[in-house]
């Protein structure tokens, strides 16, 4: 019975809501009928018609009020009030177009930027990987002496056999030369597999089959396409299965197509087994990324314990290779988002702060508006409006602003997402960032919070004591102490948030300067760089032949000042590293464990890039196997390993046998300047350069310095490339300038973004400060006039107003400085060459803020000083 009655009531309530016009008509009819009957009754008692009608109305005791009570009985009275107040709030906003525009623009900007960044964070970091039971996928990281070492196929098999995992597989990225049915051959991003990676990820091919265990272990010439490549480069043809493509000159059969979720791992076109030689590679040097799938009944901690215990056993059974190896398991999702995490969260934090400043600014404006409307509020209370209703009116106003802000914001986010996707440094799954339900919920929550910030304080201040007081004051409202204090507090909070952003931007700018400050090249605009990446199974003799051939042909060009080959370009990242021993010297533990870049370079490389030889000499061009092993080292190496000693003639080695140095000793014959290896390096790395061929590295990079301008070299390269042979192509032809710009793109993008947001926040805070002072000066015009008449000097008024503004700014500055360490600490991973408490950066932020604040205060202060007493006193 209960619920049926309830259902009936719901139906009746809804009828009251949706059929109100008809019900109102019926209400009129009902009352008209009653009046008619009552009038007739009164006439029957002998009253004249006029009297009778009056009596009938009297008996009803106020027809309009009674009808209103009947309408209220429908239960929607509050809604009428709400609708009325919403209309009123909308009208009020329309009447103040300046305020409304500023408020909508700031909230829209804040909400839009925050929403767009959230969409990116959601896609890259938050959303689960699109793989079945992806929470059970873990990345196996191997560390030795605190630094990462890659996995090896042999040790991977040990991990895969553990009880806590269903299996494990490894992969590395490769770029073989691929030719499809008579087309051009092209370097193609490929994942090389060791172990059953497809099965570990839990995906099934959308076409064809996957590799068998034996095919992978045997390094079979088979390949799987990823869905993107299949639909794009391969034209989504289903008859591809069984046909062949050429990979590094070998005919390779297409066996299937993998669904696109596998690209969460790495955005490649092809998956293929690693060559047989690599499947059997020794345990010495690691190069694999490794993924395991935990059993469903095994907790991550239990698996970690088993891996740790196994590592201890392995260091006993394989002392030469596995001693000191520490495996660590992290969730695959966290590992894949790892590099993007800090930069993205920093950006998100930045825009949240900007939104905060924007909301506070609108709150300050709104507060000022609320104050000027205090008389209206008093009037309403005097006429019977409840304070609650008044509060509702204020909150509705800020709610409307927030709603407008969120609409503008979502439209902005929708447009901004395309920009972000194109502009942000590549991150896994970045392209999937899109407007979706989660984003709308997030934006809605943002709007709600900003409405509260914007509306609550002004509403409370404006309604408190609204009853009567201001009515009595009579005259135009003057900014009293309470209201100014509240507004001052808002401005201080704005300044504080802006200071935090300024400090962050200033730290990142300093880091960017540090990145750019490390000199790369003597004449980078006229230095051409290009790459000839060869396959990992290319013979050393072939590598030597190509190197010698290319360098000889470049040297023959009259425009070429110098040309050389190196394993990786400056800022292009490291290549091979090793711990180094010094003959006849016992190194401190931390130095002995320090990983040193062991790189190959021809002598022409130093000349072409312009790396000065600081001491000794370079090795010669031709390196014979029987020649003595020689090397040049950089200054940082000398500082770390050979402090206080003449480096020339010292013998070092990068080989070890167990814990003892072993293998051939290499004699240092020269010292060269440091060159930055990675844009995010805080300090230069110790490096050893050996002649090409002294250590195996098939990814060749060339640098060529032109005497005049690089155009001629670029065209000459085309001819050289055509003669290289089918296993090699010339790629990535750029000037050194362009190469450096590309390598430092990510930190530059980040810094510029955050700096622009910091400037926006700064301007908003300055606007807040200006608005507050301007309002106060306007309100105190009479007072200033009186004071001037009584002998105050304009300079004093100027000084006082300036001081009032700067006091607020300094207060905000102090708050910001106090809060900043907590936030800058979080971004220290993005800083290069400076700490989060860098004095120069803090000082710069401080100066910028104070100057901006002073400028913002100057206008109002000037106006205060220029008050004309005669006009001011006539003002009333």
């Amino acid at each position, binding site marked *: *019975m209960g619920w*049926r*009655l309830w259902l*009936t*009531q719901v139906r*009746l*309530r809804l009828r*009251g809501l949706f059929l109100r016009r008809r019900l109102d008509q*019926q209400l009129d*009819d*009902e*009352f008209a*009928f*009653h009046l*008619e*009957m*009552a009038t007739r009754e009164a006439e029957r008692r002998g009253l004249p018609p006029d009297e009778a009608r009056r009596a009938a109305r009297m*008996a*009803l*005791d*106020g027809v309009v*009020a*009674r*009808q209103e*009570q*009947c309408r*209220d*009985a*429908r*239960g929607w009275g509050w809604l009428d009030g709400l609708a009325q107040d919403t209309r009123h709030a909308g009208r009020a906003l329309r009447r103040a177009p300046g305020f409304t525009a500023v408020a909508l623009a700031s909230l829209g900007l804040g909400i839009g930027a925050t929403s767009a960044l959230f969409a990116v964070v959601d896609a890259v970091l938050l959303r689960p990987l699109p793989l079945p039971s992806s929470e059970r996928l873990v990345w196996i990281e191997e560390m030795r002496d605190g630094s990462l070492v890659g996995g090896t196929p042999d040790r991977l098999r040990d991990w895969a056999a553990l009880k806590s995992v269903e299996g494990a597989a490894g992969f590395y990225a490769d770029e073989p030369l691929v030719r499809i049915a008579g087309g051009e051959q092209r370097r193609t991003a490929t994942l090389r597999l060791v172990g059953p990676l497809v099965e570990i990820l839990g995906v099934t091919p959308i076409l064809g089959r996957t590799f068998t265990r034996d095919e992978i272990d045997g390094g079979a010439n088979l390949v799987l396409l990823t869905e993107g490549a299949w639909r794009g480069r391969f034209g989504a043809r289903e008859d591809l299965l069984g046909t062949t493509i050429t990979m590094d000159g070998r005919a390779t059969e297409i066996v299937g197509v993998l669904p696109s979720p596998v690209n969460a791992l790495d955005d490649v076109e092809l998956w293929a087994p690693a060559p047989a030689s690599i499947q059997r590679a020794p345990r010495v040097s690691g190069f694999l990324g490794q993924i395991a799938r935990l059993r469903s009944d095994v907790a991550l901690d239990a698996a970690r314990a088993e891996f740790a215990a196994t590592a201890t056993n392995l260091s006993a059974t394989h002392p030469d290779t596995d001693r000191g190896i520490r495996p660590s398991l992290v969730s695959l999702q966290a590992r894949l988002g790892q590099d993007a995490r800090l930069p993205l969260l920093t950006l998100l934090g930045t825009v949240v702060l900007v939104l905060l400043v924007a909301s506070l600014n609108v709150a300050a404006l709104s507060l000022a508006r609320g104050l000027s409307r205090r008389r209206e509020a008093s009037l309403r209370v005097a006429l019977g409006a409840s304070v609650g209703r008044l509060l509702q009116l204020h909150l509705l106003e800020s709610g409307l602003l927030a709603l407008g802000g969120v609409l503008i914001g979502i439209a902005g986010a929708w447009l901004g997402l395309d920009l972000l996707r194109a502009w942000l440094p590549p991150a896994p799954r970045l392209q999937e960032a899109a407007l979706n339900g989660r984003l709308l919920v997030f934006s809605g929550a943002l709007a709600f919070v900003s409405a509260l910030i914007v509306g609550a304080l002004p509403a409370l201040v404006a309604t408190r004591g609204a009853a009567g007081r201001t009515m009595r004051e009579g005259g135009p409202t003057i900014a009293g102490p309470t209201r100014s204090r509240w507004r001052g507090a808002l401005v201080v909070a704005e300044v504080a948030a802006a200071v935090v952003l300024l400090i962050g931007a200033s730290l990142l700018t300093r880091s960017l300067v540090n990145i750019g400050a490390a000199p790369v090249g003597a004449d980078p605009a006229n230095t051409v760089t290009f790459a000839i990446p060869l396959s990992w199974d290319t013979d050393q003799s072939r590598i030597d032949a190509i190197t010698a051939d290319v360098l000889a042909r470049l040297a023959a060009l009259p425009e070429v000042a110098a040309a050389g080959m190196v394993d990786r370009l400056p800022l292009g990242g490291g290549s091979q590293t090793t711990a180094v021993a010094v003959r006849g010297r016992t190194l401190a533990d931390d130095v002995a464990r320090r990983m040193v870049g062991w790189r190959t370079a021809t002598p022409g490389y130093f000349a072409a890039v312009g790396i000065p030889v600081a001491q000794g000499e370079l090795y010669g061009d031709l390196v014979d196997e029987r020649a003595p092993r020689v090397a040049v080292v950089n200054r940082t190496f000398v500082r770390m390993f050979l402090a206080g000693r003449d480096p020339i003639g010292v013998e070092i080695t990068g080989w070890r046998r167990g814990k003892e140095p072993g293998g051939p000793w290499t004699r240092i014959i020269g010292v060269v300047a440091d060159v930055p290896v990675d844009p995010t390096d805080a300090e230069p790395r110790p490096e050893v350069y050996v002649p090409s061929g002294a250590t195996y590295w098939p990814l060749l990079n060339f640098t060529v310095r032109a005497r005049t301008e690089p155009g001629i070299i670029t065209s000459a390269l085309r001819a050289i490339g055509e003669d290289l042979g089918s296993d090699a192509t010339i790629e990535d032809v750029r000037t050194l300038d362009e190469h450096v710009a590309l390598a430092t793109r990510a930190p530059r993008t980040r810094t510029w973004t955050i700096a622009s947001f910091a400037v926006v926040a700064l301007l908003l805070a300055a606007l807040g400060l200006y608005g507050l002072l301007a309002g106060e000066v306007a309100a105190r015009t009479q007072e200033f006039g009186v004071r001037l008449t009584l002998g105050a000097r304009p300079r004093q008024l100027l000084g006082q107003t300036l001081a009032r503004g700067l006091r607020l700014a300094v207060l905000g500055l102090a708050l910001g400085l106090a809060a900043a360490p907590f936030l800058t600490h979080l971004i220290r991973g993005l800083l290069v060459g400076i700490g989060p408490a860098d004095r120069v950066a803090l000082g710069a932020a401080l100066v910028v803020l104070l100057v901006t604040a002073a400028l913002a205060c100057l206008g109002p202060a000037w106006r205060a000083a220029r008050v004309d007493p005669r006009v001011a006193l006539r003002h009333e």
Partner: protein
Amino acid sequence: MSRPPDLLQGTLDLLLLKIVDLEPMHGWAISQRLRQMSGDVLQVSDGSLYPALHKLETAGLIDAEWRPTENNRRAKFYKLTDHGRARLVRESAEWTRLSTAVTLIVRVSEA
């Protein structure tokens, strides 16, 4: 004219339910019937009658329909719903209990 005693809170609802239980009736007729039945002891102002009726209607206890009167004028007739009838039974029992108790007390103190 001496003012009739105010109706107890909620009593009006009970009276209205009882009246429309006899037969469907429009507002005017209900007001006449109220006056008639209580022998002018209870005088409900015509004004407070309608809000009360509308509240009962929204609560689902009475239902209304428009139809012609004996004079062929269209009027809104109220009648009891099943929910209303159940409520009436419950409330009149409650009322009887209450008034019996009050009567008892008043008699005892008079005696």
